[in-house]
């Protein structure tokens, strides 16, 4: 899911990453709306709101919305910054670090919300800023490593892409095109997962409130450890293979030595 980069990624890699991160995005968005009455990844909407607040001279709201937009921008920036600067040293780590940062952000919000939150406006806006940062980190990573094929919080773009794909299916020429079919599968998976995440958060919110974010943290942990377990198994298998090879070579060397001794004796 996280080990491969750009064109080396398969459809399966993109679908797995898309599903898990879309569930996370859906849950975080719905939970933030129900807790704070604002979305945590609706950047298109925030630009429109910014224009509206500027026209009404609401300086406070202008400042807050600008901070939120910058927060999302910063998240995406940090994500791609880590990927391009650390990709050569360790691909898995370069791709996992933004998810780890996202996990820390959401975990921080969960812990603060359950233990210290008093409901003041300052706390609300700060927590939303952190959630926007986390969504920026996620969107930046998924778009960057999948060559913009996977977009889990940018549903405007995904809806546009899906509509284009469906319109292409109306033409005989594109109906059996494997790339277009794969894109349709990926987009439908992302939509379904986002909705699933949104439903889960909406149902669980009443009883769990801020604890919903702990479930989000669990999903992100699966994303991080999925590839780590495969790397661990691969490294272990490689080690075992090398040991066996050494033993075989040693045995062969011993056999050759004993054969040569026998020949010498005879």
């Amino acid at each position, binding site marked *: 899911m996280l080990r491969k980069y750009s064109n080396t990624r398969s459809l399966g890699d993109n679908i797995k990453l898309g599903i898990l991160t879309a569930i996370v995005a859906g849950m975080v968005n719905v939970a933030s709306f129900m807790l704070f009455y604002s979305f945590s990844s609706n950047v298109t909407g925030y630009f429109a709101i910014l224009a509206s607040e500027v026209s009404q001279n609401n300086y*406070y709201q202008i400042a807050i919305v600008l901070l*939120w937009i*910058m927060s999302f921008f910063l998240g995406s*920036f940090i994500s791609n910054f880590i990927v391009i600067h650390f990709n050569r040293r360790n691909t898995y780590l370069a791709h996992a670090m933004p998810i780890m940062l996202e996990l820390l952000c959401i975990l921080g919000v969960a812990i603060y919300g359950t233990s210290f939150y008093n*409901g003041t*406006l300052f706390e*609300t*806006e700060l927590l939303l800023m952190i959630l926007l940062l986390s969504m920026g980190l996620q969107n930046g990573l998924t778009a960057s490593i999948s060559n913009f094929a996977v977009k889990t919080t940018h549903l405007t773009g995904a809806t546009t892409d899906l509509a284009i794909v469906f319109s292409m299916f109306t033409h005989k020429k594109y109906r059996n095109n494997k790339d277009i079919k794969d894109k349709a599968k990926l987009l439908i998976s992302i939509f379904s997962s986002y909705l699933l995440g949104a439903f889960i958060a909406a149902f669980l919110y009443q009883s769990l409130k801020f604890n919903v974010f702990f479930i989000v943290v669990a999903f992100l942990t699966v994303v991080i450890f999925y590839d780590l377990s495969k790397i661990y198994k691969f490294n272990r298998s490689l080690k075992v293979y090398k040991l066996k090879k050494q033993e075989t070579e040693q045995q062969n060397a011993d056999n050759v030595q004993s054969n040569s001794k026998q020949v010498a004796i005879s």
Partner: protein
Amino acid sequence: MKIRIALILLFTSISVIVLAFIGNKYNPENEFVGSWDEIDWNIKGAEKSVVTNLGLVQPPSEEDRDSIRFHTAKSWKFRPGGVLILQDKHEEKELEWRLKGRGHILEITDGVVTEYYDINLLSDEKIELNYIAPSFVKDYARLVIRRSS
């Protein structure tokens, strides 16, 4: 590369400090604190609906108008720390009030029933609140309160 990172961090820090300063100066919570008198409660949605205009449904009576919202009072006292005191002719209720979102939503709750209002106008003398129906319809009813003299 280190210089670039430093410049980016510097720019981000300055922007955050400036925006935080603006936020602190113009915090809408400070505008709410004080005593206010309710001067108008007007249901807009029901009167403008097609079914009432065609005479299919009777528009709500004066008593029904108030039944849409749970928390009613003539005097509203917003205290710091999220305490709201509603005073009517014979009773006084203590509720909690909070601003949500970017400071554009007022939430009031008694722990059991929670109501949300979209803040349409917030000034020194007057506050206009649009009642948000459970279906998230904002332009349903308007509450206007004026600062007590």
